[in-house]
C-alpha cells in the first residue's frame, strides 16, 4: 500500500480534488466581477438545456467525434493491413508513419491551417490544378470547410496510433488460419472479412473507444486552427468550456458544460474501463 502513496497523494491533489471542485462549481455562479461562488442550484443546467447554441455545440461535438474516430480507425485498419504485408523498405515506412503523432499539436494545427489557406494553400492549388474547383475555396472561413479542415487534421494526427494498435492486434492472427482460408480459395478481400476482422474485432473496439475518448478531450488543434469559428461551426464542448471559463470568466456555467461533457465521455470510457478491469 505504501508504494502507491506518492502517486495517490498527487492524484488526489491535482486530479481528484480539482475534478470534484469543478463538478461542485456547476451549482454556483462565479463571474469576472464576483469570482467567489454564489449558490444557484440547478440554474446553470436549466440555462444550458434551453440554450439552442449549447445544443448545437453538443451536436457538433458528437458529429466531430464520430466522424474523426470512424475515419481514424478505418484508415488505421487499412494502413495496418498494408504494413503487415512484406514489402521492400517496410521498416523505413513503419518508422516514418509515427511522425504525425509525435509532432506538437500546435505544429499540426499550423500545418493544416496553411494547407487549407484560402489564397495560397496547397489544397486549393491541387484542386484547381485537377480542375475540381475553378475558384479558390476559403476553407477556414466557411463553416463546413473549417469543420472538414479540423477533422482531417485530427485524423492525420491520430491515424498512426490507431495503426500501431491494430498492427499489434494483427500479429496475434495466426498465419495457419490465413493459410487455411487460402487453401479454400479465398482472395485477399474475403480473407480480410472472414478471418482477420473477426479475429481482431476486440482490438478494433478498444482502438475505437480510446480514439473516441481522445477526440472528446481534443482541444489543441481546434483552438490553434479555428478557435471554434467560424460562427461556432467548430465549437466543440472542450472549446466552449475553455472560452466560457477563460475568456468570459463565467466559471459556473463552464463547469456545468463540463458536467454534460463528462457524461458524454463516460459512455465510451465505460466500455474501455470495463474491458480493462475484466483483466485485473
Amino acid at each position: 500500500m505504501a508504494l502507491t502513496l506518492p502517486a495517490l497523494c498527487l492524484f488526489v491533489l491535482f486530479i481528484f480534488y480539482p475534478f470534484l471542485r469543478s463538478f461542485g462549481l456547476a451549482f454556483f455562479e462565479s463571474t469576472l466581477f464576483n469570482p467567489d461562488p454564489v449558490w444557484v442550484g440547478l440554474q446553470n443546467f436549466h440555462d444550458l438545456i434551453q440554450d439552442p447554441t449549447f445544443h448545437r455545440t453538443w451536436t457538433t461535438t458528437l458529429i466531430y467525434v464520430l466522424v474523426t474516430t470512424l475515419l481514424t480507425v478505418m484508415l488505421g485498419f487499412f494502413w495496418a493491413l498494408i504494413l503487415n504485408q512484406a514489402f521492400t523498405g517496410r521498416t523505413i515506412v513503419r518508422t516514418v508513419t509515427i511522425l504525425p503523432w509525435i509532432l506538437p499539436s500546435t505544429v499540426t494545427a499550423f500545418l493544416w491551417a496553411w494547407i487549407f489557406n484560402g489564397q495560397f494553400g496547397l489544397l486549393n492549388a491541387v484542386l484547381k490544378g485537377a480542375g475540381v474547383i475553378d475558384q479558390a475555396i476559403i476553407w477556414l472561413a466557411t463553416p463546413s470547410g473549417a469543420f472538414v479542415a479540423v477533422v482531417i487534421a485530427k485524423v492525420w494526427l491520430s491515424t498512426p496510433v490507431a495503426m500501431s494498435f491494430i498492427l499489434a492486434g494483427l500479429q496475434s492472427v495466426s498465419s495457419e488460419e490465413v493459410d487455411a482460408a487460402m487453401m479454400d480459395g479465398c482472395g485477399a478481400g474475403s480473407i480480410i472479412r472472414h478471418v482477420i476482422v473477426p479475429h481482431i474485432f476486440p482490438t478494433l473496439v478498444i482502438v475505437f473507444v480510446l480514439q473516441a475518448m481522445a477526440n472528446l478531450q481534443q482541444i489543441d488543434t481546434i483552438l490553434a486552427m479555428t478557435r471554434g469559428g467560424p460562427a461556432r461551426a467548430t465549437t466543440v464542448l472542450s472549446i466552449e468550456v475553455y472560452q466560457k471559463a477563460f475568456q468570459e470568466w463565467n466559471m459556473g456555467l463552464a463547469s456545468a458544460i463540463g458536467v454534460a461533457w463528462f457524461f458524454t465521455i463516460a459512455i465510451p470510457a465505460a466500455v474501455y474501463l470495463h474491458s480493462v478491469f475484466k483483466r485485473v
Partner: protein
Amino acid sequence: MFKKVIFLLSTTAAYVALQGATAQDASFVGWAYSEAAGKAFIEREVDEIDDVSVELIGFPWNQMVQNMILRHRSGESTEAIQIQERWMPMLVGLGALQDLNEIYGADALAATVDPGLLAMGQFDGKQYALPWTAGSIALVANGAVLETAGISEAPATMDDFRAALEKIKEAVPDSVPFGLSTANPNLIQVESQIIFWQFGARFFEDGNVSIDTPEAREALEFIVGLVDDGLVAKGNDRNATRALYAQNLVGFYFDPPVARGIARKQSGQGEAFDVNVYPVPTPSTGNGEPPRSVIWAHLLGIMSTGSPDLDAGKKVVGHFALNAETQVAYWNELGLFPTTKEALAQIKTDNYVTDWIELAGTARLDEPASFENSAELRKIIGEEIEAAMLGAKSANDAISAMAKRLEKAM
C-alpha cells in the same frame, strides 16, 4: 575564515542595497511590444527612462484581456499596462487600476492633456488611465485604388458607397473593394457596429437590448449584400486587409489612425504612400445620422493588483503619455495621434490629423464595453453577424437570435 565570509557578505549586501535604491524595476505589459513596429520604438524609449529597469511583457492584441485578468487574479503587480478603450469599464469594475489623480495630481493632468481626451480614462471622478494615443476607428480610403476606379470624391450615401465598390471591383478584379473584417468575432462586432449605427440601429438602450429593430435588419442585409456580391472578402481579418491595402488591393476599410503608419511599413514605400491614405466620413443612409465611427484609444494605467512600485509606474506611464517629445516621436514613427495638448499643437499642420479629429467628433464608445460581461456580449454579436455573413443564417434570423441570446446574457 569566518570573518572573511562576514566581510564578503556585508559588501555584497551593501552593493545590492545601493543598487536597489536607485534602480526600481517595473513591468510594462502591452500588445504594442508584441508587434514589430511598436517593439523597436518601445525598447528604445524604455532605456531613456532613467533609473527604472523595465521588463517588457508583450501579448498579441486578442490575448491581452485573458492575460490581464490572469495577472490580476494571480496577484502579479504591473507598473504600466496598455489598455484598449473598450476594456476600461471591465478593469475599473474589477478595481484593478490605480487612481492616477493621486499620483500626478488632477490639475497637472488637466494642464497637459485636453479634458475631452482625459475623459476616456475617467470613471466616477477618478482618473484610472491616461490616453496614450486616441482617435476613432473610421473608414480609411486608398487614394490610388479610387483613382484607378475613377472615383473622384468620397461617396456621400450608402448607395454611392456601393456603386463605388462595384467600380473598384471592375477596375481592379482580384481586389477586395471593402476590407470589412469577416473573421474573428471581436473584430466583426467593432467594425459592423459602425454600419449599424449609421443605419440608426443601437444594440443597447439604457441598459436593455434594443437590437431587434427593422433598422438593424436593414443594416445587416446591407452588409450581407456586400459579402454576397464579392465586394467584401470572406475569412478576412484586419491584419490580412492591411497587407492587401498596402498593395493597393483594398478600396476602403475600417482602421484607427495607425493605418497610415502601418501602410508606410507594409507598402515598403514609407512616407511616399501617405498621399493614398486618408479617412473619409462613413456614408449616410439619409436618416440624419452624422458620420459615425467608434472611439478608439490606447490608454496607459498602473494596476493596483499585488504591490506595484508606484513611483516606477509613474515614471513609465508619464514618459509615454505625458512627455510631448516621446508623443511626437511616436506619431512620426508609427503615425499614432498624440494626446498631450503640446504634441497635438505640433502636428496640427498635417491635414490627415485634422480630418481624423473632425471625424472623431461624432464617434461613439463601443456599446458592449460598458457591461460587466462585455466579453460574452461581444462574442454573441460577433458570432451572429458572422453567421449571417457566411450565409449560415438569414439576416432576419441572425438579428432575432442575437436579441434572444443578448437578453438571456444580461
